[in-house]
């Protein structure tokens, strides 16, 4: 089946048209009647239940400040891959149940991201249940300590000559300090660091450009022109939610037209940054450096040799982008992707300095990591030592190196040669199995620690709950190495900060740090560095055209490097652009797919350097041709033996960590049904997103309400007498200009509203339960389409089509205009869902909610009913938050103030794309948004009067690129 797009739609979702599926396959009429009869009888019986007795267990001694069932918030921080993000964690009766950003923390500013939100499930994850293992048999912590102390005593004699420590990138100052002490005690011991998604290239690029490793922070709030060289800074960057916020603050419609920023994205795969770009150029990874050189030369970086770009489109891009950057001197950013070669990083630094961005939009500081090293070299050194039999005792603090190490290093085999190996990790994974000892590690919500944010700001990590599965922290293991057995982490962290703070009143300092969630004054000061003469140091440009297919390796946008693979929330989260769930796929462009003769869902063998993995093809519109993207993190031993995913680490070698050439793809002839949600909930709307350019908006501010978007105004009349909404009138506005497709809202909704995980097969059957989805629409040619994100949940129609069709009045309207769903009345006819034009209702076809796992019961939000089988559900606009705010306001005899009701999605949204409020309050922010001329009602011509409206998207189009402007054909009517 050759890939083709449905040409009837200007905004399309998938290359293949949606298949019509027969829902009652295999059941005939008689069988149906039998089943329905049986279900009816069963449902009648289910009502006859005597209420079982429940118990109240009050405290013996109630802790101060603890009020039963009043949520408490504690400031802590999540050590995300990269840097820490500050959080406020909501705790009810001692159970952390929701994660929010800490407004005082520079990385989050009160917002959050999908990883932090989903980390809640990581805490309660039943798969984390583990014990201390000795050679894969259950053992105990005391016997581990005995063996460990013994081994260390031997090392003490040898000055640690056989002791090696392997950590991930360390961003905890207290742990760094402990490791320093360990190295003092064992002077010949070695400390290695390895993380598969590391900053080696950033470091090498900085060394190339400045002769020293400096950390670079970009200030997108001041940037008018941005060039991304393969950087997915909006989603997979170092501190994405802050970057997304700053970036979105200068999008069209939010600032005057002359201040709107413009993003040029040059990238190989289709990232969410590419989807937010005003212009996007798909480029093979191997062409990136030459393109960077061409732009650098045109921007005026001295002495850069740039081979002439053979492709006229690239040449044009280099010229136009360079010109645009030069016109915005001091307000531009060139940002290279983490995965790009060091030369690209160095060129980007040189350009930023040349363009006067240093000190304004681009800020350098000292490195944030405690001890930055070349991680690949570090791991290689460890592997060599292991192979040479020089390692008596290897201590692995976190991570899963057996799974993540480059395939050619043979780390797993080498590890077997260590006399004693100790692994501290959250899961009994590949490394745990391969090590002599495995010690279960605590989750960050269970431990005392500290961590640094992207700008060096330190946060104390404080526990919300005792370790559920008896884990130990890295601090405790490190303390054991210093001879301090069973020293609590709290003391270790406090000790470190007592020494470091040198505060006269340490108790006050400590309490303040815990209360604020940040240690004041720890942000790194800016540093001035001068670029060295790059021309001399740059390696010679790569030869322009290497033939054959190239492969690039990228962290997965939902499971990252594999650390979140056990997290069902993240597994089921549709990847921002491809909308795939539960699997990674072999991503290829449509042209490459037809050249290879492969198609989506077809399984292939991918061979690179004599190593082969089997994966499933996904044809990704807009992907660079002749290039194949593989994402990391899937097919771990513990989870993911089934499915169509592959383990990209099996192909990844130390020579080519991020990209390689010489790839061969062979069809296997098989198929695997990837669960992709891109066609789920398709609307019968030709122009679901309304798009114009900043220029259009300036000349014709009403474009969003004219042809072709709106050809008939909503009828506006109804058979029912008009209802006057007195009191509150809840409504929401979603700004498409600000949405970066990061899915933070989806994940926040999942954890707030106890949304069930359904699994791959059910997602494949269109049965995912997400109340909120982010639709992604393509527009234009499949070779390089534009992409638009549109968050959509129940729009709470004032004239809701779902309501009149419900035979049991299970869905009805409240006086405040909410479309209420009453689970106990619902008998599961699904008429409402059929009649919903927005396709936002979700039906529990099976018992998706896990009633049996004790730990998951602890995770649920007690203010939201978990739903059972046979019940329809949907977005409630977070009714539990509305009711709480209303009751609190009523107790004070006043109305709810604007900003008191914040829905979970709104609270998580890093860019403030979602705004909720009372439409009867003229000063409410939501009314300001709704009064914008960009505001439009999705499917408004159906006279549904949705309370959720969207703000049309503005693209900051640059005519000089000669691209086809966004012109939508008026709808052909009649015929």
């Amino acid at each position, binding site marked *: 089946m050759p890939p083709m797009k449905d040409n009837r739609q200007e905004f399309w979702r998938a290359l293949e048209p949606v298949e019509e599926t027969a829902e009652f396959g295999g059941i005939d009429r008689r069988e149906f009647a039998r089943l329905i009869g049986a279900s009816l009888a069963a449902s009648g019986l289910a009502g006859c239940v*005597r*209420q079982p*007795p*429940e*118990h*109240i*267990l*009050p*405290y*013996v*001694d*109630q802790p101060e400040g603890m*009020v*039963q*069932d*009043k949520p408490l918030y504690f400031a802590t921080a999540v050590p995300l891959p990269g840097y820490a993000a500050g959080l406020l964690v909501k705790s009810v009766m001692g159970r952390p149940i929701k994660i929010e950003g800490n407004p005082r923390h520079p990385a989050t500013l009160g917002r959050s991201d999908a990883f932090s939100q989903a980390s809640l499930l990581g805490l309660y994850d039943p798969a984390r249940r583990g014990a201390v293992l000795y050679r894969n048999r259950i053992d105990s912590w005391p016997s581990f300590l005995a063996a460990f102390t013994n081994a260390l005593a031997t090392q003490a004699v040898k000055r640690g000559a056989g002791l090696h420590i392997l950590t991930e990138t360390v961003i905890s100052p207290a742990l760094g300090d402990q490791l320093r002490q360990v190295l003092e005690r064992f002077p010949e011991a070695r400390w290695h660091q390895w993380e598969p998604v590391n900053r080696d290239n950033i470091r090498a690029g900085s060394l190339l450009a400045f002769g020293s490793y400096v950390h670079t922070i970009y200030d997108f709030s001041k940037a008018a022109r941005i060039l991304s060289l393969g950087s997915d800074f909006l989603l997979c960057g170092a501190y994405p939610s802050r970057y997304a916020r700053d970036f979105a603050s200068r999008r069209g419609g939010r600032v005057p037209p002359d201040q709107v920023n413009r993003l040029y994205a040059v990238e190989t795969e289709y990232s969410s940054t590419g989807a937010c770009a005003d212009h996007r150029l798909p480029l093979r990874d191997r062409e990136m450096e030459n393109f960077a050189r061409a732009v650098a030369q045109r921007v005026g970086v001295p002495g850069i040799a740039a081979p002439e770009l053979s492709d006229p489109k690239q040449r044009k891009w280099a010229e136009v982008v360079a010109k645009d950057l030069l016109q915005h001197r001091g307000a531009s950013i060139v940002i290279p992707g983490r995965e790009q070669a060091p030369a690209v990083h160095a060129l980007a630094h040189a350009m930023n300095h040349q363009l006067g961005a240093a000190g304004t939009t681009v800020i350098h500081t000292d490195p944030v990591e405690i001890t930055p090293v070349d991680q690949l070299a570090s791991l290689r050194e460890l592997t060599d030592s292991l192979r040479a039999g020089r390692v008596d005792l290897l201590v692995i603090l976190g991570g899963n190196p057996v799974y993540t190490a480059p395939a050619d290093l043979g780390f797993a085999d080498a590890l077997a040669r260590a006399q004693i190996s100790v692994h501290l990790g959250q899961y009994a994974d590949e490394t745990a199995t391969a090590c002599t000892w495995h010690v279960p590690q605590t989750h960050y919500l269970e431990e005392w620690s500290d961590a640094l944010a992207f700008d060096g700001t330190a946060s104390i990590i404080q526990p919300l709950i005792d370790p559920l599965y008896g884990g130990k922290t890295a601090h405790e293991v490190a303390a054991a190495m210093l001879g301090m057995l069973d020293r609590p982490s709290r003391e270790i962290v406090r000790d470190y900060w007592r020494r470091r703070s040198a505060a006269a009143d340490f108790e006050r300092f400590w309490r303040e740090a815990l209360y604020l969630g940040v240690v004041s004054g720890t942000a790194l000061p800016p540093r001035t560095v001068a670029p060295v003469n790059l021309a001399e140091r740059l390696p010679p440009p790569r030869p322009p055209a290497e033939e054959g297919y190239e492969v690039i390796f990228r962290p997965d946008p939902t499971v990252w490097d594999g650390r979140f693979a056990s997290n069902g929330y993240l597994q089921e989260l549709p990847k921002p652009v491809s909308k795939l769930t539960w699997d990674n796929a072999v991503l290829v462009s449509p042209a490459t797919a037809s050249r290879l003769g492969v198609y989506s869902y077809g399984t292939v063998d991918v061979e690179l350097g004599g190593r082969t993995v089997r994966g499933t093809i996904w044809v990704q519109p807009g992907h660079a041709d002749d290039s194949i993207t593989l994402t990391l993190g899937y097919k771990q031993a513990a989870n993911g033996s089934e499915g169509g995913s592959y383990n990209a680490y099996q192909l990844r070698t130390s020579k080519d960590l991020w990209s390689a050439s010489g790839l061969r793809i062979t069809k296997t002839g098989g198929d695997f049904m990837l669960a992709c949600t891109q066609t789920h909930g398709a609307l019968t709307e030709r122009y679901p997103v309304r798009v114009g350019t900043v220029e259009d908006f300036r000349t014709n501010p009403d474009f969003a309400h004219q042809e072709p978007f709106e050809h008939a105004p909503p009828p506006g009349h109804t058979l029912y007498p008009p209802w006057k909404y007195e*009191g509150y009138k809840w409504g929401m506005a979603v700004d498409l200009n600000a949405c970066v497709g990061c899915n933070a809202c989806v994940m926040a909704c999942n954890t707030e509203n106890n949304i069930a995980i359904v699994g791959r097969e059910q997602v494949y059957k269109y049965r995912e339960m997400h109340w909120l989805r982010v639709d992604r629409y393509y527009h234009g040619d499949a070779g390089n389409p534009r992409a638009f994100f549109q968050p959509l949940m129940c729009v709470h129609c004032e004239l809701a089509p779902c309501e009149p069709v419900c035979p049991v009045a299970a869905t*009805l309207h*409240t*006086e*405040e205009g*909410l479309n*209420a769903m*009453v*689970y*106990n009345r619902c008998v599961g006819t699904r008429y409402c869902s059929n009649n919903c034009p927005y396709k936002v209702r979700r039906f529990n076809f099976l018992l998706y909610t896990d009633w049996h796992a004790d730990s998951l019961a602890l995770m649920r939000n007690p*203010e*939201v*009913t978990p739903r059972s089988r046979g019940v329809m559900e949907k977005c*409630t606009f977070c*009714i*539990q938050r509305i*009711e709480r705010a209303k*009751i609190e306001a*009523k*107790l004070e*005899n006043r109305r709810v103030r604007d900003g008191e009701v914040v829905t979970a999605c709104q609270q998580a949204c890093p860019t403030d794309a979602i705004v909720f409020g009372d439409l009867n309050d003229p000063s409410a922010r939501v009314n300001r948004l709704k009064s914008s001329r960009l505001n439009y009602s999705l499917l408004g011509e159906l006279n549904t009067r949705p309370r959720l409206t969207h703000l049309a998207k503005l693209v900051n189009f640059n005519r000089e690129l000669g691209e086809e402007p966004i012109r939508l054909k008026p709808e052909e009517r009649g015929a």
Partner: protein
Amino acid sequence: MLEGAGGMPQLFHRGANTIARASIYGGLGIIGLFFWVIYAVNDSPYFDFVGVPRPQPVQFSHKHHVQDDGIDCRYCHTTVETQAFAGMPPTHTCMTCHSVLFADSPALAPVRQSYADNTPLAWTRVYDLPDYVYFNHSIHVNKGVACITCHGRVDEMPLMWRQKTLRMNWCLSCHRSPELFVTPREHVFDMTWVRDGDQRDMGARLVKEYDIKRLTDCYTCHR
């Protein structure tokens, strides 16, 4: 096919009419009885627990503590005015008095045990709403719903039992017509206060004064 002029022969005996009548009315009666039994069982204390004292770890007498000792509700149920949950006293609260009073009483052994072992007492819920009902004490108390309106004369209950059915129609009787139940705020915690005059007049006045709404949206209680 028709028989002769004599018509159809009589197949059934006359008495069969009686049997037929008896079985029709009897059948209806049995069906009716069946539904009545279901209704009666469903409405019985077996299901709604009205008037049924529940087993508790300690034979705690509200009658003694409220009536004899004059302890206010809020001494133990501390968060009734501010939170959804009225609050259950920690063992510490019991021990403030009972470390001195009746310090050796065998009836209080579980309390002392709890205090010594630091293990909570497991009280059986008497007023147990279904889990999909989100009830909030604070707003009811603040809008003039007295303790006795739902919990009855707790000061006369040696053991705690449920006074009302807690069925939805019972909730709605007040949510639809709050003026029939509302009490002046200053008497909410008063077990013995009796209004003088007509409830309707006073209720109408209080509904206005306290800005009480008729909240019958499902979302008011169910989420």
